[in-house]
């Protein structure tokens, strides 16, 4: 019998994967690899570590899939949590190593066809995002890169929807203050130079 694996739902694919069906795990992998990679890329700021950590996320998921307990959370929340923990460990282990700033790397990828004013605005934004505490960075990436709703973000972060809303509002205020501080200091430097 030929089974149409790509049409499997997450729940069925998970059950099959838990029974050792590697093809079913492959379906889940294909479904989520881009999202997990993108999330890790924004948290680490470089392709090499993003690939390494993405591989670790899926190997860890494969190792523990048979013990996975359905607590009403989507599979993506489980994978994002694994990714978040691995990124936290990575930041801890690399705290003494000099890292290439996130904004530099991301701008290199997109700088080809953008006007300078837009690039500076992006650079400033990524700079202030990178200075946020890890949970706020996670929230911003899940919301704007992964386009998750507040309820889904709450599932990933283990918080209520209201708590996510509140954290998001505080994060926006902090981003606005930092962003305008940068803009003001940039314009003052410009005036001094003139």
């Amino acid at each position: 019998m030929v089974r149409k694996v790509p049409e499997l739902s997450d729940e069925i694919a998970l059950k099959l994967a838990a029974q050792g069906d590697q093809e079913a795990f492959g379906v889940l992998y294909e479904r989520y690899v881009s999202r997990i990679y993108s999330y890790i890329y924004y948290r680490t700021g470089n392709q090499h570590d993003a690939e390494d950590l993405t591989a670790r996320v899926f190997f860890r998921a494969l190792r523990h899939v048979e013990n996975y307990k359905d607590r009403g959370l989507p599979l993506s929340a489980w994978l994002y949590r694994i990714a978040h923990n691995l990124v936290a460990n990575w930041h801890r282990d690399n705290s003494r190593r000099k890292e290439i700033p996130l904004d530099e790397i991301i701008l290199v990828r997109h700088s080809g066809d953008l006007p300078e004013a837009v690039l500076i605005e992006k650079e400033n934004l990524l700079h202030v995002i990178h200075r946020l505490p890890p949970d706020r960075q996670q929230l911003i990436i899940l919301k704007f890169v992964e386009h998750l709703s507040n309820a889904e973000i709450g599932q990933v972060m283990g918080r209520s929807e209201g708590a996510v809303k509140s954290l998001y509002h505080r994060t926006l205020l902090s981003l606005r203050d930092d962003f305008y501080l940068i803009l003001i200091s940039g314009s003052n430097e410009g005036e001094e130079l003139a």
Partner: protein
Amino acid sequence: MDKASSSELNAIESVMLSSLQPVDPRPEFVEGLHQRLTDPMSPTVRFTRQYSSQFILLIIATVLSGIVFILTASRVIISLIREFRLTKFK
């Protein structure tokens, strides 16, 4: 929250919406990892109990041989110093 403040937050949100785009992984990476995850024949390193015991034995042997080396070297140095002193007083 006043109108100006609200419009500032909206501006920040719109900048984030336009700036934070998903980043796709390299297709070779995706394909390679898929093979490693789903190919039962792909090589994996497993630390078996036998391997661990061999590793512990290797560490013990290294430490013991290090101690023997330090003892021998210090005895040689001490005997050289003694001989040097004896020849000096003669």
